[in-house]
């Protein structure tokens, strides 16, 4: 299945390049926007620009993996529904969990490459980025991706049930995490609007800890959510272990429901 996805990917070079270009444009746009708020603009001290660049790009990387995981599994299931191959696939003896994970394998590889290129790009623009605790940050990212996979499984199940409407739900969820998990700005920004947003919403989202831990580790600063780095890493690890199990269980239930109702391949 992974090989099939990679082959599919390689057959659409425009899509490949488009994704790549898109990433740079998004980052460049946010950098330009944030420079408009920096005293001195482009002439501001390099340290300020670097801290800003790091906040944007490291949060963006976590958001990138989350977004692709959420989209890819559900979208790929939907595609199989549209093409009419989902029913036959589910009658084959192939493992369901492998089939689900394989759907995101190619895009995760590509996201990894894009993340590296995004860091290089922003680093070149702002004159270097802080890269403290790379090993630990990568570990946090790994568990974060595992946790996102669990959310992706849930959305795959939801796609089977809701069909086209599930995409709207993913879109909404993506925006929700973009804002409340502070992917493009520090949590301090949300706290400035209202401390209740951070204490009442952000702190209850595991994704927030993934963003905060990954970003703080690489910048070499104290995490913003106030639990300390040890506790945040623990939450991310627990999320990475529990989420795929729970996600797959929910997926199985939804899939079974669709099979019983005879709507699995319904388009």
């Amino acid at each position, binding site marked *: 299945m992974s090989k099939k996805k990679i082959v599919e990917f390689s057959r*659409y070079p*425009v*899509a490949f*390049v*488009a*994704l790549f*270009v*898109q990433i740079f*444009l*998004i980052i*460049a*746009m*946010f950098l*330009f*926007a*944030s*420079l*408009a*708020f*920096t*005293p001195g*603009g482009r002439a501001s001290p390099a340290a*300020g620009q670097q801290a*800003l660049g790091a*906040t*944007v790009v490291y949060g963006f990387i976590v958001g990138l993996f989350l977004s692709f995981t959420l989209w890819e599994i559900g979208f790929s299931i939907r595609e199989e529904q549209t093409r009419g191959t989902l029913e036959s696939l589910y009658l084959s003896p192939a493992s369901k969990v492998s089939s689900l994970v394989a759907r995101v394998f190619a895009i995760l590889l590509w996201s990894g490459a894009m993340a590296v290129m995004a860091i290089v790009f922003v680093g070149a623009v702002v004159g270097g980025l802080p890269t403290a605790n790379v090993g630990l940050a990568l570990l946090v990212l790994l568990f974060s991706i595992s946790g996102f996979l669990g959310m992706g499984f849930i959305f795959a199940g939801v796609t089977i049930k809701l069909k*086209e*409407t599930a995409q*709207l*739900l993913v*879109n*909404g969820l993506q*925006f929700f995490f*973009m*804002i409340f998990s*502070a992917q*493009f*700005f*520090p949590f*301090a*920004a*949300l706290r*400035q*609007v209202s401390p209740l947003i951070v204490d009442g919403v952000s702190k209850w989202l595991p994704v927030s800890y993934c963003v905060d831990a990954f970003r703080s580790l690489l910048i070499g600063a104290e995490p913003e959510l106030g639990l300390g780095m040890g506790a945040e890493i623990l939450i991310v690890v627990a999320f990475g272990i529990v989420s795929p199990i729970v996600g797959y269980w929910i997926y199985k239930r939804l899939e079974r429901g669709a099979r019983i109702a005879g709507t699995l391949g319904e388009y």
Partner: protein
Amino acid sequence: MAAAAGSRGFGLGRPGWRARADVVRTVFVARIKIITRYKGAILMEALLPIVFAAMPVLLGTTVASQQGVDPGAVFCENTMVSGRCTTNFRLYMLIGASTFTVVSLMLWLIGYWVRREQETGTLESLALAPARRIWVLAGVTTYAFVRAMIAFVIAIALGSLIFQVNPFERGVATALAFLALGLLPLWGLSFMFGAFIMKIKEADSVIQVLQWILAFLMGVFYPITLLPPIMQGVAGLFPPTVMTDAVRASILDISYFYGSAYGSLAVLFAMALIVPLLGYEVFEVTERRLRRKEGVGHY
């Protein structure tokens, strides 16, 4: 006798004005009926510009406050052109993001319509129908326009409440005039985009990347004068950039990219005359070529 029969289309129906209007209306109603089945889509489109504007607002506010300065004052200083600027950065971002949504939706809906017809195998039949393509396209673009405007109005109203800004303080009539005029070249761009999608087929990725190129060139979050000079020149020739800039300038009382409201009006007026004709011509030529070579239904 033969010439008269020929001029009447050898007995084939030649749609008159009423029939043409009916084509536009039917296409429009059909599209509206489809979208009313996905009510969440319209809500999401209205929320998109608010989320989109919230991110730079939050980021900018933090950046400025970390340095102990007023974000509005810094924004004004950094975006000052010809001695004029605004401290109301929230409204600046909201207008930018909302007009971007209109532009993006118009292109997206037209591009996706062409692709969808190709996928479902109905584009070929449409090409064989006696109705001219321009009326079918007029129906689709009208639908795209209505849908985009619904999103725009909801986004501005809801966004103003969330960001606590008042977009009706000044220049609303001028802004609406610029928006209306700016939609004409946008119509033309949509035709060109539809032609492009018909040719290259990979609609999703092209639409997505184009969306971000647009956002970058349109100066959704910043005045295009912040861009390098060559890019400013390119962006200034792009109708949505002029439209966004003019809408923003009239509401926020800041300087226009083309010097004055009259300058921008003249440029946009010229674009409104040229781009739709050019767009339709591009669409027709592309379609004709495709029909000769392989047919327009290739998927």
